[in-house]
């Protein structure tokens, strides 16, 4: 079973969300998601200052197996993107929860984050999918 850090929140579509001290959130895809996708070859990130509603497609990850959409876990504005991924998309494979982060958002409603899955619920989802 892959690593699921307890301090993060998760979505059904395998994004992780970390709330920072300033109230912004950092978003990436989980270790499980990168395992399923395999070696990354290209990552298309959103534009900064773009606004998304929870559930919107906002980025694309392309691996040797497939191209997949990344969905915005919350409603808000993009405040930063991880530019390093353009040259080294493999960072997402190597460190999905750390240096492989994808973008940061300023949430419209911080309460939305609490509605996302916690680590236990996400572990359960993974166990379910494993059947």
């Amino acid at each position: 079973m892959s690593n699921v850090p307890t301090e993060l929140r998760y979505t059904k579509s395998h994004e992780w969300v970390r709330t920072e001290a300033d109230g912004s959130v950092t978003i990436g895809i989980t270790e499980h998601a990168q395992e399923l996708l395999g070696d990354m070859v290209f990552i298309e990130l959103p534009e900064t200052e773009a606004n998304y509603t929870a559930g919107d497609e906002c980025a694309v990850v392309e691996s040797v197996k497939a191209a997949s959409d990344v969905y915005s876990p919350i409603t808000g504005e993009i405040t930063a993107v991880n530019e390093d991924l353009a040259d080294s998309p493999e960072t997402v494979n190597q460190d999905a929860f750390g240096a492989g982060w994808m973008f940061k958002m300023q949430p419209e409603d911080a309460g939305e984050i609490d509605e996302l899955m916690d680590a236990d619920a996400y572990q359960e989802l993974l166990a379910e999918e494993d059947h």
Partner: protein
Amino acid sequence: MLDKQTPLIFEHSRPSRVNTTHTQRTTAKTTNIPAGLLRKSKPRLPEVSEMDAVRHYTRLSQKNFSIDTQFYPLGSCTMKHNPRACNSLASLPGYLNRHPLAPVKHGQGFLSCMWDLQEMLKDVTGMTAVSLTPMAGAQGEFAGVAMIRAYHDANNDTDRTEILVPDAAHGTNPATATMCGYATKEIPTDANGDIDVEALKVAVGPHTAGIMLTNPSTLGVFDRRIKEIAGIVHEAGGLLYYDGANLNAILGKVKPGDMGFDVIHMNLHKTFSTPHGGGGPGAGPVGVSERLKPFMPIPVVGKNDDGYYWLTEKDLPQTIGRLSTYMGNAGVLMRAYIYALLLGREGMVRVADYATLNANYLMVSLAKAGFDMALPERRATHEFILTLKRQAKEQGVTAMDFAKRLLDYGFHAPTTYFPLIVPECLLIEPTESESKETLDGFIEAMAAIQKEAEKDAETLKGAPYSQPMRRLDDVKAARELDLRYSFEQKDGK
């Protein structure tokens, strides 16, 4: 014998070692290209003798791992035998030398063949009319969705902005919808491999322009609730698009028109006897229901008391327009016409019979040999999905490792990692052309590879061993695509 390293044609090049007898001579006077667009220096074309050129390209052709040399069970691709007679007959000088601008009365023979092909395709798909003009599957898809758009526009029904696409769909479906200016909405698949009808009911509405479906789906099963699905989408005011990618499974057995589809594209280059997978030429005719008939791409072959003629904008003022300079890929259409005639009505049904029989034989035999099927409760259509999820966990070998090792056993790999919703999958389509002996050989190879995986997984990880190239680095190839020959390197600069 295969040589391990074949140099590029540029590396055979020596200054002035060129056979000028084949060189076409033109002067500036004979062209009307503006001076500013003409190049100033000569292009660096390879200079080789005829012998060197023949050897080089013959060697390359020997490296082909193809349907002409090996079993090629590439799922959703229908790599079946293309009868040579179709090509020989389509290449008769009368067809081959016909000029597309020749007067219609001089092309009545060819036009009668195209008329008959339109009629046969109508019959086999159950549609009201057929236009042969799209020149590939993707263009057929584009024409299909463009017609859906034209239909809604003609009805001033401009709020329809979404096309529904199941999650098992070919990637071309959402791409086509996007090209035609639609947003796509994904519909999930239920545990039995059918479309999740409850989710569909939630997704349809006044914004639905249509749904794009492949039936049988890419999961290798027939969607049993298709009539219900058609009802739900039509009720909401949307239209149904049939992706003809898997037409081989139902040829002459079930008609998309009877299932309730409004538009279908057919890949004649795969189902009707033209080699494919090399980038063309293809033919993707579209069949339509009554309501989409006015919007068909032109030209379409018509028939009156004077004979055959082309229907154009005058006859179909609401047409989505032309998709090619003339009338599509004539050669591919001729091969399809001849193939249909050779098969006849009974033969057409036998295609579907044997395509599904072969797939089911292979599926049941591989299950008996200990492999897991993605949908073990379902009968396969012309293809089926095997999942190596258990092997990945227990032996640490992947679908890609199995695929590469199959090459050493003399079989082309099945489709890997598609559809995306099944982990570690192989999508296997044997087609109707293969003998029981070939299928048995494939089953034995799969069983032997499984034994190797259990004994020493490294055997698979290093495969292939017998091919001109070993395991290719597909990550590097995708990240650092390099298609340009560097003359600087050759010149030692």
